[in-house]
């Protein structure tokens, strides 16, 4: 099913912004807030893993219901998970479309990656503290 991915700040994301290797950060940054009706239609349980796919790649997240979300729109806090699938196109303004990525969402059985694994997938090298 097709959605418009919006990103923005959340207080939990902000609280853990200096703990990016932490479980708390991973969980918040990979949480996808969806309209409950959309979740029902896709047969997704609360906190179930979903795969979110755009023209720029795909990423596994978990879904949670959020009635404030309009149907057809999803929200993920800004961070490496959402950005993994955001296009670098800026329309020559310097600013990517962080609030308007067209994505397909479906349930999956895969797990959510830790941040380091995401970074390794683009050529990085894990540092463990």
């Amino acid at each position: 099913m097709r959605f418009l991915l919006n990103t923005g700040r959340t207080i939990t994301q902000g609280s853990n912004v200096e703990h990016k290797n932490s479980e708390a950060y991973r969980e918040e940054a990979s949480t996808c807030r969806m309209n409950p009706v959309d979740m029902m239609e896709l047969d997704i349980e609360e906190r179930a893993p979903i795969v979110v796919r755009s023209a720029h790649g795909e990423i596994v997240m978990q879904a949670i219901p959020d009635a404030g979300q309009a149907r057809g729109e999803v929200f993920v806090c800004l961070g490496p998970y959402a950005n993994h699938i955001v296009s670098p196109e800026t329309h020559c303004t310097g600013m990517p479309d962080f609030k308007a990525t067209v994505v397909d969402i479906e349930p999956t059985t895969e797990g959510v990656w830790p941040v380091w694994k995401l970074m390794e997938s683009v050529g990085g090298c894990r540092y463990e503290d």
Partner: protein
Amino acid sequence: MKIEDVVCTFCGCLCDDLVVEVEGDMVVNVENGCTLANKKFMGNNRLKTPIKRDGGNWKKVGLDEAIQTAAGILLDADRPLLYGWSGTHGEAQTIGVHMAELLGAVIDNTSTVCHGPSIMAIQEVGHPGCTLGQVKNRADVIVYWGANPIEAHPRHMSRYTTYADGFFLKEAFRERKVIVVDIRKTETANIADEFIMVEPGADYALLSALRAIVRGKGDVLPRTVAGVEKEQLIRVADICMSAKFGAMFFGLGLTMSRGKYKNIRNAIELTEELNRHTKFTISPMRGHWNVYGSNEVFTWITGYPFAVDFARGIAFYNPGETTSVDILKRGECDACLVVGSDPGAHFPGDCCRHLADIPTIQIDPHVNATTHLSRLQIPVAVTGIDAEGTAYRMDGVPIRTRKVIDTTYPSDSEVLDKIYQIIRKET
């Protein structure tokens, strides 16, 4: 020991009324701060020593070696990118700009993925703004457009707007009207007197419509604009025009959505139009605690607030061309220095790929997403905790942050100055 009037170095609110309790080199308690402040001051998650990539492994290195390596990488590059700067103090930003001049580098700050579009809009039409105290003391109408202060600037409403009693508003919460415009019903929207739910990407049309109404041209408009009933728009325009002092705050909902800076431009022009009827101001909700400082420092040295390209010796500015995301997308830069920010987490994945391809150096107190993309990281003191320096609040008010504990970490300025001195000798 309790230290009063401590400045919080998290968001652009730059609250300076924290009371921090310190035992030895640890902060043990924070009063007055929001959740974000508490987490920041109480954090204990520093990278201990400089680390350097050795093929597929990491090793610890001494500070001097790290500094030599960093300078060497930058000096070897044909198009180095110096990115970040919003998470450090002004004195370090100054060294960064002078370093960029010498290197013929591109220097850019996090505005590029935050309020860069606001700056571009201001460059077209200006900015009728004010300090936050002016809003606190006078504003009877507050508009949050594409901004969610409850999550991003938790004390904004209690210190400066909705809940802040001021000189001319003794009971602010009762006397002020709050208008929220967003594409989703956020926590902030829940406390609004008027909530306008706009279709994604349609802010521009909505702002144009409001301008037309304020100009007395509402009859041109169709019955609904961007999913919003015309009646509501007329009502909102009326609230704004009959305000004694209105203050609009906008966030990334405008800067990042379709049309980008043209949305902000339209919001500013609406504000200018409203000033023909009453007093109205508009202000961006700046994110990082010192992102505005990086704009200020860049501007007085180079003339431009962000995205400055020194490749040809002179300063050149053109967002879309000299901005970090574009440079990374096109794979232009051949080395990158990251200071006080985390592009690994906040840039599109394809940009991270290029950061991993080239020698990327990070100067940051913490392990973050960019760490895994880097070849070298130098940990530094945290400004506002174990280092001090100048910061500019979101409204341009400069405040000196305090140092509340002593550690052995060098500050950003100390590390950057050492790199700068090597570069100076070599160029």
